[in-house]
């Protein structure tokens, strides 16, 4: 795939100030026994922005998402999510912070003994004190967003892979979280379904301004997110004019050997001189 080009005068939109960031990683190290997955990873995700994480298999992309949720703890370093330092929090306190985040797992991770309705409503049912009518309405809204309203009473095993991912997105966004974490949401799907999911991610980014981390192996997904925006009028993607690529709140982060080898926007990515990155994106 060819790398999109951006004009040289495009001003980077990335915020340099970590204080205004949804996620901040500072010199994070993590090893599983002798396998050092992360070796001093530092980056920040500004509010309202989507950051695509790239890297070869086993480079620690999914691990970064799990660290952001506090599902894993680093060996050293500091992680701040939505203003809370997760590395200092107890498991009990993390549950309320996780309530402000949504995660779409690689294999959807839907509860197979619950229907689509119960899966999507799970978080609301756990909160208690919410009337069934209100839950039902929110579930329908959420499923309408992913265009799967007709699957309410089906079980996950009765859905296709793409539908399961979309239900997982509906489950993640039902409470309109401040931060969304997508773990290879288009992995193993056909191009049409992948495009539908990219469209949903873009819709969430541009309509609700949700900050998100997107782990993906598909460069074209991230480039689509960087070069398009969601048009509320037509309810479709609209390609940005070439000079406005930097207007999309989108950045790229590439991991190599447990370290960040690139962190920047599409303009910087297009003009990078790094051989590894050029090879990676070519």
């Amino acid at each position: 795939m060819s790398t999109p080009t951006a004009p040289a005068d495009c001003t980077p939109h990335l915020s340099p100030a970590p204080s205004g960031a949804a996620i901040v990683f500072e010199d994070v190290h993590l090893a599983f026994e002798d396998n050092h997955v992360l070796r001093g990873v530092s980056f920040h995700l500004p509010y309202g922005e989507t950051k695509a994480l790239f890297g070869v298999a086993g480079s620690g992309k999914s691990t970064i998402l799990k660290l952001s949720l506090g599902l894993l703890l680093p060996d050293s370093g500091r992680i701040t999510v939505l203003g809370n330092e997760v590395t200092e929090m107890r498991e009990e306190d993390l549950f309320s912070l996780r309530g402000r985040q949504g995660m779409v797992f690689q294999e959807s991770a839907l509860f197979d003994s619950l229907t689509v309705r119960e899966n999507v409503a799970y978080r609301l049912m756990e909160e208690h004190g919410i009337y069934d009518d209100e839950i039902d309405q929110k579930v329908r809204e959420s499923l309408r967003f992913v265009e799967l309203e007709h699957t309410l009473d089906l079980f996950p095993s009765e859905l296709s892979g793409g539908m399961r991912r979309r239900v997982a997105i509906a489950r993640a966004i039902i409470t309109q979280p401040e931060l969304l974490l997508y773990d290879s949401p288009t992995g193993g799907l056909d191009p049409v379904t992948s495009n539908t999911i990219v469209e949903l991610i873009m819709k969430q980014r541009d309509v609700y301004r949700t900050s998100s981390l997107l782990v993906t192996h598909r460069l074209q997904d991230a480039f689509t997110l960087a070069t398009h925006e969601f048009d509320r009028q037509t309810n479709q993607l609209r390609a940005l004019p070439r000079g406005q690529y930097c207007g999309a709140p989108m950045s790229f982060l590439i991991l190599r050997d447990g370290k960040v080898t690139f962190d920047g926007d599409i303009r910087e990515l297009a003009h990078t001189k790094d051989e590894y990155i050029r090879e990676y994106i070519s």
Partner: protein
Amino acid sequence: MELTAPTEFAKQRVLAVQEYIELAAHSVASLFRKPLYFADMVQQADLIGVGSLPIVVLTGFFTGGVLALQTANTLQRFGSITLIGQLVATSMVRELGPVLTGLMVAGRNSSGMASELGSMVVTEQIDAMRALGTDPMKKLVTPRVTATVFMLFFLSIISDLVGLAGGLMVAKVFLSLDAHQYWSNAWQTLVFQDVFMGLLKPVMFGFIIATVGCYYGMSARGGTQGVGRATTQAVVVASVCILVTDFFVTKLLISVLSFR
């Protein structure tokens, strides 16, 4: 197969025991912290208790019957065949009722818990639950532990009763003994210590069954093969733990309660 150094093996075992104790303690502590998943407890009580009823009834009935058959010959030699009710009652209430019920429920439910939770672990459903702000210990482990302890207590009582009925059937049909005499003997021989021992054991066994099943489920690794391994280990470890605990509890109670 990769060989493990003895020190590494020992470390792994110690770590496993530590993790098990942590899970067991957490499952009890969660009972006193909100939210309490009462509906899940009732559902588990139904699955574990009502679901295990047929096998517990069958096991209890035939154990009582075979106990009467096996001991009848010896008792007859000493001219004490009328004591058969006493023997069946004491054996069932103090020992066989709780232990056999425990072993049956361990075979049925430890494996069920390990495979269910193990499948949830390997398909990231446990991570998804944590990501959705729910503590899997409170939602999955505590209801299973509570329900098993509660239901095993009553299942053991049912097992004792049907065991006595099995003994009665043998006494009446094969040994031509008087039913009233059998029941009188069985009833009058039981004292507080017998009943206390018979009711304390299922509480402990229930705790072992559920915590071992949940521990192996929650620590399952390595896909479907790992789930299968966890299931087998859960049944084996729970069964062995029941028998070992039974020995020590019996020894302790005999000393403490000054049994005759």
